[in-house]
């Protein structure tokens, strides 16, 4: 799974680091150089303590943020800005409240000079895929948080990206909804064969969804561990009580715990030195 398998690498992250200038001088080293590769159609989760730079890494892969060093490439093509082969789903509700579901899903298609009828049929397909059939003409405010997030997913999938980046997409949802929508995401992933990079801080979610989990350290963030998740899909609740699951979960948790402690100490130190 390292750089030594370039033929399989669909998404390649090479020496990517990020340093932010602080207001009033000084810098924060958010990411130390990171190297990683993801094969076509893989589902990878990234877990890490809050504020560690998971989102920064994702935004760099998306082309929304420029890395300080290094480069990202998809199928050997460098990513220099947002591109249509990379789709992003944000944590916050990103639906436009003044547009209906179908118009929200259509938003990205309007960029291509696609015929309106074609846009609509494509949008309908996507709405179907995320299970919102019947809600095409509803406005976001009439939908639950989970449904709005599906709209955002449909909007992203409508462009048929080969890489799907998800930044804690279900973070704002309640645990039950989160579980259900996770199962649906897996079905969509399996039927579309996209490469997924999924940021979360929920170990269980990471282990239930992905084929591989990257555990990140606190700043400057590196990938501390890359753990293959060997379980077969579909993954039911019985998985949670197996020894293998428990073992993996405990291992991730111990790394996370250490890194979170560092993060906590550093922040407390900052506060007390003020």
């Amino acid at each position, binding site marked *: 799974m390292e750089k030594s398998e370039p033929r399989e690498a669909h998404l390649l992250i090479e020496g990517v680091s990020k340093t932010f200038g602080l207001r009033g001088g000084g810098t924060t080293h958010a990411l130390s150089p990171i190297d990683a590769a993801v094969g076509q159609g893989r589902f990878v989760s990234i877990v890490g303590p809050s504020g560690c730079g998971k989102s920064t890494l994702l935004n760099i892969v998306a082309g929304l943020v420029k890395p300080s060093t290094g480069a990202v490439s998809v199928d050997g093509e460098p990513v220099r800005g947002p591109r249509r082969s990379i789709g992003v789903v944000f944590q916050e509700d990103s639906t436009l409240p003044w547009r209906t579901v179908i118009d929200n899903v259509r*938003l990205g298609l309007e960029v291509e000079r696609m015929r309106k009828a074609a846009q609509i049929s494509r949008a309908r397909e996507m709405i179907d895929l995320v299970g919102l059939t019947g809600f095409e003409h509803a406005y976001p405010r009439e939908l639950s948080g989970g449904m709005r997030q599906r709209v955002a997913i449909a909007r992203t999938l409508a462009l048929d990206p080969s890489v799907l980046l998800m930044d804690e997409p279900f973070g704002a949802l309640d645990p039950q909804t989160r579980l259900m929508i996770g199962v649906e995401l897996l079905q969509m992933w399996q039927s579309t064969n996209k490469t997924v990079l999924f940021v979360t801080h929920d170990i269980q979610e990471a282990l239930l969804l992905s084929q591989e989990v990257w555990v990140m350290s606190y700043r400057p963030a590196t990938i501390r561990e890359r753990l293959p998740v060997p379980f077969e899909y579909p993954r039911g609740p019985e998985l949670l009580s197996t020894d293998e699951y428990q073992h993996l979960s405990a291992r991730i948790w111990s790394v996370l715990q250490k890194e979170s402690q560092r993060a906590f100490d550093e922040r407390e130190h900052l506060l007390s030195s003020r």
Partner: protein
Amino acid sequence: MQRELFRALWSQVLTFFALAVLIVAGWWLATESGLVDTRTFPEVGRIIGAQTQLSDPAPATFLDHLAVTTVRVLAGLVAGCLLGFGLGVLFWRLPVVGRALEPYLLAFYAVPLVVFYPFLLVLLGINSWPIIAISTVMCSVPVALNTWIGFREQKEIHKMVGLALQMPPLLRFRRIELPGALPEIFTGARVGAVYSLVGTIGMEFMVSSEGLGYAVRYQYETFNVPSMYLFLAATLALSFVVVTALLAVSAVSLRHHG
């Protein structure tokens, strides 16, 4: 937003009618009971039956004056909204310009723009143009300030969506930024409408020879007190219609905004 605006609309309509009824009833009681001087506050019947024809200088009718003022107010409102929108977008795109002008725009409240009217009279002539100019400028200031706020305070997440979907700037403006700023722009336009009315009627008091403001002034100076009140009522009614219509337009336009 949507429900709030519709509620505000109904509340406004009901309140205006309630106020009108209260004022007329109070007026009637006060005048009929002899509590007030009927030379200053004539009886309701005399106001309603008052003559609306101004004897001099032009034989304009009530409707003529109403039409003139309506045209001036609407012209000022439309031009003011366009000018204000343009300025607001400019300030958003070039914050340096916006920040440099901001104190002066705020102080606009402190400088009755009408003090410039003599210059405008010489510049534009004694006709409708100086009035429309004042009305436009007064209307444009709140529109500009609110447009600026609307664009500046876009939701971060909506900006990200535009970037992530790789929308070209013009499409982003039309599909995301403009709709996002629209509620603020409409707020500015509603404030602007009142200023457009103030500018028009104030200028008509001073410089015009037609329009409702002129008619009120004329009747005041010729001691036609009942007629003065009739024209005044027409002025207030026109203001109510303009302000309420704009509120209705914003409520309908923004009905899907969250």
